[in-house]
């Protein structure tokens, strides 16, 4: 049962994720996309008379069930198979992070950065709140996120999705290599 406790390789995880595209199409004509769930939540909870949120969100409620499934899946994978060992991290990344005081590799995300205590520090606030804001604002402005553009869009050979994916990557390269090192040392 080592496959349960070991991290899964990319050639297992990638094709499984790719299969979500035809599965959603075939079980109900749905396009794989996750960031839309944020829009539907806004439409359901705070439409505030904004035209962008005036649509029948109940038709899209499948998307909210889908993301609820992701939360439960995350819970089950962690609860059923607790991690016993530290996560493997590239030595160069570990060296750079240790300069910023990130040394705990016991979880999938660095607890020294993502915790309720950290939220009230400057760098924690920037990473958790500003980062989250950019994810929500940017994905809606771009018309989709990694799932909607990079996976669904490119699978259907849509060139606007290729533009979006390249811009996602460019933004990520700039942040991870140029801006984040500054934020982490605040």
């Amino acid at each position, binding site marked *: 049962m080592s496959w349960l406790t070991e991290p899964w390789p990319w050639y297992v995880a990638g094709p499984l994720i*790719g299969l979500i595209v035809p599965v959603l199409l075939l079980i*109900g004509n749905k396009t794989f996309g996750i*960031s839309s769930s944020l829009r539907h939540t806004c439409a359901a909870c705070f439409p505030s008379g904004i035209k962008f949120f005036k649509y029948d969100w109940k038709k899209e409620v499948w998307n909210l069930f889908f993301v609820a499934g992701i939360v439960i899946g*995350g819970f089950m994978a962690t609860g059923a198979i607790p991690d016993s060992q530290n996560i493997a991290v590239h030595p160069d990344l570990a060296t750079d992070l240790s300069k910023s005081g990130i040394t705990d590799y016991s979880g999938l995300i660095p607890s020294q950065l993502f915790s309720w205590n950290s939220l009230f520090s400057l760098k924690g606030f920037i990473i958790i709140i500003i980062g989250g804001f*950019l994810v929500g604002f*940017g994905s809606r402005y771009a018309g989709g996120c990694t799932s909607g553009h990079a996976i669904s869009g490119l699978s259907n050979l849509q060139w606007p999705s290729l*533009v979006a994916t390249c811009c996602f990557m460019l933004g990520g390269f700039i942040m991870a290599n140029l801006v984040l090192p500054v934020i982490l040392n605040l």
Partner: protein
Amino acid sequence: MSVTKTIQQEPVEYQERALDAVCVNESHLTHPWWYNFKYLAVGLVFGVVFVKAEIISWYRIQEMFRLESFHMYGIIGSAIVVGAISIFIIKRFNIKTIYGEEVEFHPKTFNKGQVIGGLLFGLGWAMTGACPGPLFAQIGTGATVIIASLLSALAGTWLYGYFRDKLPH
């Protein structure tokens, strides 16, 4: 066929919704609400893969953008290949949904949002180490502070809707 019909019936509304392609893809069948549990099941499998393949790990995303690991490139790349082959097969053999409906595809139209929004999204992706899917899975794993990130992402979505007419597209 049905796409052109929709355009003729409600041109303005369609173009509004077409900027967000997910909202134009709809089944024309109505089912009881509990039919949606099948999507919950698909999401559940997705959530398990997210955790087991460490896709929701902040470290894996940093390594991707620092070109220190092939892992995420392999995952996204092989997902696209499998998705593309699947869509090709569905189109080529005209495979219907389990309810016998024609599978609908909607072309995406280019606008400046894909560039500006895409860059902003990329900045946020590398900061949080998570795109929207992993945010949900991280909360599931017990990282409750990510609820704050998710609420902030909701605020970002809402503000986009609020300022949408003033933003370049």
